[in-house]
Structure formats: C-alpha cells, structure tokens
C-alpha cells in the first residue's frame, strides 16, 4: 500500500510522450531510416553530388506538399494542384513566346492567373458547400483539357519551346532555375525556395492568427464560426496559396527546361497528398504539419534517386512510395495512441 505513488513520477515520461505525439514524428523516423538505408548501400547517395541530386525532385514536390498540407489542415483538398503546375507554366510560355513579352511580365500574368484559379476554386467550394474534392476535380479536368487544347491550337504541337530566346530569360532563370555549387554538388536554387517556404509555413501555421484559423476551420468549422474566425476568407486564402505554389513550381519547371509539355504536372496531385499524409496530415482536417509534409517530400526524393543509385529497377519506385506511406501512417497512429495513453 504505497499511498500517493502516482503523485510525482510519471510527469517527465508524460512529457516525452507528449513530444513524441507530434504529427511529423512518423515522417521524421521514416526519413532517417530511408537515408541510413540508402546511404549505407551507396556511396554516391551520400556524396554532395548525390545529395544535390535527390534534393532536386524533393524541392519541387516539397513546395507543393507544404501548401497542400496547409490546405488539408484547413479541411480541404485541391485535385487541380498538379495540373496547375502545368497550366501556369503554359500561360508563362505562351505569353512569352507568342506575344513576345518580357519573361518577367509573362510570369506576372501567370501569377494573376494562378490567383484567379485559386480564388475560383475556394469561392465555389465555400459558395456551394460542395466537397472541395468534387469542385477541384472539375477544375482539374477543365484545366487538363485547356492545357492540351490551347497549346495545340496555338503551337500545332503539344510542346511550347524557345523560352531561352525571350527577353529577361537570364535574370529570371537566375532566380528560379540556377544551380549553386557547394562542395562539388550542384544544388538547384529551388532547394532554397523549398526551405524558405517550409520555414515560412511552419512559422505562419504555428505563430500567427491566420495559422490558428487554419487549424480551427479544418478541425471544427462550427466552433470557428462561433468564435468569429473569418472562415470563408481563411479557406479561400488557402486555395489561393496552393495555386500560387503551383505557379512557383510551374515557373521553376519552365525556366529550367526552357520548354513545357501540355500534359506537365498531371497525376502529381496525389503525390502531394501522399507527402502531406506521410507528414502527418489527417484527411479529415484540423491536424498536420508543414514540416512533416516537407519530410514526406524528402523521403520521396531520397527513394526516387536512391533506387537508381543502388542499381535497382526504377519500376520499384511506386512500390516503395506506397510502403513508406503505410509505414509512416501506422507509425503516426501508433505513437499518437501511445501518447494518448499518457493523459489517462
């Protein structure tokens, strides 16, 4: 009969449990495991050149995953996010090559286009009360058709090219598509954009009023409305943010390749969601993390290049990605349950 045995002891343990219960814990463990795995099998993988190589696909995916994660925390989906990376690039490409405008102007026009599409997506979702899944499925299909139709109509092919000859190309490609050499690895500048955006998103979600609103509109819309959170404004802003992220990725892509294909970006929307979910986002909204989504993108980059480095058939990539998704989600659930028990 030890009276009061439950008084002191468990507090530090409970804290540790509480810290473990962060949404990104599964992705963090996953990223470490994947890194150690490939790094031990392949020397190239852990060399600066190798790192630069797998950070590249991670960066463009990461930019999108962070925006999509914020949107999912806010309780919505955007299936048009993938095709929008193509649409924005096509707008830039057409304005620059067909009208012969300065590339910076073309990029500006494309940005306006992105804001408009994001706003329309958000406005329709809020106005109709229909699930964003449906609304953005509609805009996805429409944009897919437009991308192909307009490109073919104006160029006669499914490819827009010749960006390198447009005025302003050099300065724009410095900003969006250059490489920086560090320790012999040629790192893409998109990696900097990605890191910057991740830091910004983490900060905004956790340290600003807007961030609180995002969690509240995704977690409990009625509660949010009752305490005076501007629900409509918050959600529309999230859709616009996602579209603008797509614009950034589209711009990076077209400047890098100096051309763009009409079907660019299609199918990527699910990969963004996968990265966000690996990073701890719940499909039901109200829970998740931008850092987690970034880790999800990192895993994606490491696996996609790592498979090549260790000499496996790249066909296995999707299998690994699926397995990572399951492992990360199960880890999240397990850890969360473990932490829940701490409160009891």
């Amino acid at each position, binding site marked *: 009969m030890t009276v009061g045995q439950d008084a002191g002891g468990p507090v530090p343990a409970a804290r540790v449990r509480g810290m473990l219960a962060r949404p990104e814990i599964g992705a963090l463990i996953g990223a470490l495991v994947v890194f150690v795995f490939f790094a031990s099998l392949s020397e190239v993988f852990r060399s600066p050149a190798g790192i630069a190589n797998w950070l590249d696909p991670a960066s463009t995916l990461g930019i999108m995953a962070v925006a999509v994660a914020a949107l999912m925390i806010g309780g919505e989906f955007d299936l048009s996010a993938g095709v929008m990376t193509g649409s924005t690039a096509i707008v830039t490409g057409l304005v620059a090559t067909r009208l012969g405008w300065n590339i910076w102007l073309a990029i500006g026009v494309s940005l306006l286009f992105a804001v408009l599409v994001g706003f329309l997506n958000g406005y329709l979702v809020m106005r109709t009360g229909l699930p964003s899944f449906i609304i953005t499925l509609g805009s996805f299909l429409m944009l897919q058709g437009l991308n192909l139709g307009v490109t073919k109509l104006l160029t006669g092919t499914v490819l827009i090219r010749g960006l390198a000859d447009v005025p302003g190309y050099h300065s724009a490609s410095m900003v969006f598509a250059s490489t920086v050499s560090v320790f012999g690895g040629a790192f893409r500048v998109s990696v900097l954009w990605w890191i910057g955006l991740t830091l910004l998103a983490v900060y905004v979600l956790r340290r600003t*009023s807007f961030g609180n609103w995002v969690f509240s509109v995704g977690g409990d819309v009625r509660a949010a*409305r009752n305490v005076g959170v501007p629900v409509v404004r918050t959600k529309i802003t999230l859709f616009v943010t996602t579209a603008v992220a797509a614009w950034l990725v589209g711009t990076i892509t077209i400047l890098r390749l100096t051309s763009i294909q009409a079907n660019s970006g299609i199918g990527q929307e699910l990969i963004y969601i996968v990265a966000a979910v690996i990073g701890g986002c719940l499909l039901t909204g109200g829970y998740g993390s931008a850092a987690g989504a970034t880790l999800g993108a990192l895993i994606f980059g490491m696996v996609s290049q790592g498979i090549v480095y260790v000499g496996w058939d790249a066909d296995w990539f999707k299998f690994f990605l699926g397995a990572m998704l399951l492992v990360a989600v199960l880890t999240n659930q397990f850890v969360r349950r473990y932490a829940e028990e701490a409160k009891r």
Partner: protein
Amino acid sequence: MEDISREQSDSSSLLQMRGIVKQFPGVRALDGVDLDVRAGEVHCLLGQNGAGKSTLIKVLAGAHQPDTGEVLLGGEAVKLANPTAAMRQGIATIYQELDLVDGLSVAENIFLGHEQATFGFTRRGEMFAATRKLLARLGHGEIRPSTEVGRLSPAGKQVVSMARALSHEARLIVMDEPSAALAHDEVTNLFRIIRELTSQGVAVVYISHRLEEIREIGDRVTVLKDGRTVAVGLPARTTPTATVVSLMTGRNVEYVFPPRPTGGFGDEVLKVEDLTVPGVVSGVSFTVRAGEIVGLAGLVGSGRSEIMEAVYGARRATGKVTLNGRPVKLGDTSHSVRIGMGLAPEERKAQGLLLDQSVARNITLASLGRYSRFGWLNRKLENAEAERLVKALDIRPPDPNRPIKTLSGGNQQKAVLGRWLVEGRKLLLLDEPTRGVDVGARAELYALVRRLADEGVGVLLVSSEVPEVLGLADRVLVVREGRIVHEAPATELDEHHVLDLVMDATPSHG
C-alpha cells in the same frame, strides 16, 4: 432600500429580449420569448429538454438570427448579426456543445478569433501569460497553456471554454449547462467565479437542469415551455420547487425514485476480481447480481468511470472479469457487446452520434443485429422498438424519423442513452445517465432503468449526483483513488456520509 431599487426593472435592465420568434423547418423553437436580465445578477433559464433555451442563447450569441423580435442592450436596440458582433457588444457564450478545436492548444483556443497579435503575428508570451492567469483564476493552474485541447478531459474542456468567455471582458456571460461536465467540487469553484463576476457587475445567464444549483447561485428565474416564456423574473431562492417544475412541464411530476424490489436478487451477473488499470484503478473486486443496480460513487478522477470502461473492455486492464460465469476477454469491446454488455459512456456526444441519421437509427444502431435476418433489416421491427423508446424516454418532438441533429442537446442525449436500454442486454453500464436530462424525463428514465433491472438485467451506475446514486441504486460502492473504500446498501447511507467518504474527510457523525 435595495429592494426598492430592484423593483424598477426597466431602468436597471442590461439586456432585454422581446417577442423573439425563431422557426426551424417543422418546429417553432421560439414563439415569442421575453427575457430581462439585470446587471450583476445570475439569471437562470429553466425549461424542459427542447423548450428552446439553447436556441434563445444562440440568438443572443449571434449564431442564429431571429425571425422577429428585438434585442436591447442597455436600453438600446442592437442587431447581433454574427458571433463577432455579439462579442463586440460584450456578450460571451459558453455553448452546450463545447466549441473547442481539438487540434489547437489551450491558449490558442482561448484566443481563437481574437488573437493578441501584431500584424498577424501572435504574441505568444502574452497569450500564454494571460491564459495562465485565467486558468489560475478558475482554480486550474495545472492546465498548461500549450497542451493540445484534444487531450483534455471533458471537465478540462469545460474549464477552457469558461476561460475563453472570461477572456472577453464581457458584461454578459451566457452559460448553457456549464455544470453538466463538472464534478461536485468543480461546481463549487464555478459558483465562486460566478459570484466574483456578478460582484463586478457582470450579468450571468445560467442554464441548468439541476434545481439545487439554481437555488444556490440564481437570483431570478425565467421559465420557458415549448418556445414560450411562461414565467418571468421569479425569485430563484424562494419559489417552491413544485411550482417551478409544474411551470416547466405543465404537469405535476413526482420527483421520486422507483421503488426497490422487495424480493432478493438473482444470480451473479458480473464478477470482477482484482481489476487493475495501471495508474488509475488498483485491485478492485465486486459483483453485480441479476436485477440489482449497483452505484459507483466517487469524484471525477477517482477511477469510477475507468472501472466501468475496463469492465467493458474499452481500456487496457488486468484482472478477472466474468459475465454469467463466462470469462470476459479484457480489452475487447466487441466481445463484450456480443456476450451481452452495454455501455452508455460519459461522453455520449463523442460516442458516434450519427448526426444526419434519424433518431430511430441512432437508437437501434447498437442492436441492428436483432432486427435483421440474413443481413436484411426488418424496418418495421426496428421502428417499433425506436418508437417505444422515444415514448419511454420522452424524446421531443416524439418523431423517430427526424434527423437527430435537429434535436435539442438533452434529447440527443436521451436518444444515445436509449441505444443501450433496448432489451437483450445482461449487464448495463451507465455512466452519468441523466446528464443534461430535464427533471420530468429523469423520473421516467429512472423508472425505465428499474424496469430493466426487474426483468433481470444487472446495472452498474456512475453518477456525480450523490442523491441519484442513493435513490436509484440498491448497493453503493464508494471509490476513492482507484480503490473501493466503502460498500453498503443504499438505504444505509446518506448524502453527507457519502460525500465525506469520497473526499476522504473523517466521517462526521452525530
């Protein structure tokens, strides 16, 4: 002298609502309601489940727009177009269905919608400090501002919503059944804060189904019945209970417990040996016989709900539990249901209310197997059973086909409770069965539980209201710090004795 100044009601009125009408599809929830609240008073709003109390305060909070009627604050007509407008007028509301966002921290919830921020960047240090101060004022300094609200207990959440109301510097605070999730000592704490607020001139509108509370904290009472005001400004302390109850219900309710059976009880239905839940319950043993109602009395956190949940399998535990002599697989709720247990948990709302489904479906959900053959549902049988329970529990409006989300809070509770009151259970575990249920329906609920017991069901009951445990149960187990510290037939105990036992004070006899 003071009495005279109190008579001039109009001049000292802080809030007047006149002729408020609110029509929902198929129901007129408010049909010309008047309310008059003075600065510095606790004004109680009474009425049966579905009378319109929550709807009225939602109008006041700006969450609903009335069809007709006017609201005057300090003598001036105001339009409360949305929740923000109401808050700007100094009206803070604690809703019946707590409006907290689980994924946000305590501090973030308290300041949600009115963040302390510079250019959108929250001043966390300040918000944390303010949160700590508010929580300390509420007597809950142990809740950390950074804790995620989803991890708090129902009582903890209640405290946070209270803190949120206090954070508004309101002149009128509306509380819709704030005590429903609170334990005895926490209610005392709540009352201390209410007194503190009213002494500063803040008015409180207080809704509760517990008449003793109204007597203790209330100044005046307004009674609603079927969306109409039937009495205004009754003195809370001196109006006889019978008057209040007959105003509310339109009839004379005998607020009594059903008689206990005269014969003995049947065989042992439940036998619990050495049940242990790490950290909460240590080595508890007891039995429940067929036809017997066993009450667990204890404070929130004493382990009473945990005992129940462990028996049911909703919580990891060690020990031995047998039902009708058959061992129960611990930690497997579906096994427990299959062999005849039913648990009506404390947090009923969280336990899967299917909001868009009908009342009938919500009632029959847990026992659909009984109405189906080869996987096909027998709708007629299902509806008949639902209809019987709707009547028995006095669910209003008595229409089993309504979507449950259009029911008032108390009526939703009754429906979810009804899930487990269908026949065919051998052991019923009832956690706070009358929370949020009005006095009239309570008596009927007690009778229903007793009838089930008389048919041979064993019942284990948890309630924060000691009179309820003493009145309904046959035998009482007093739980403190995870152990059973006392056991006696209910007839041999009185309220003081039990309260002393649960709080570990030296029993004061004589």
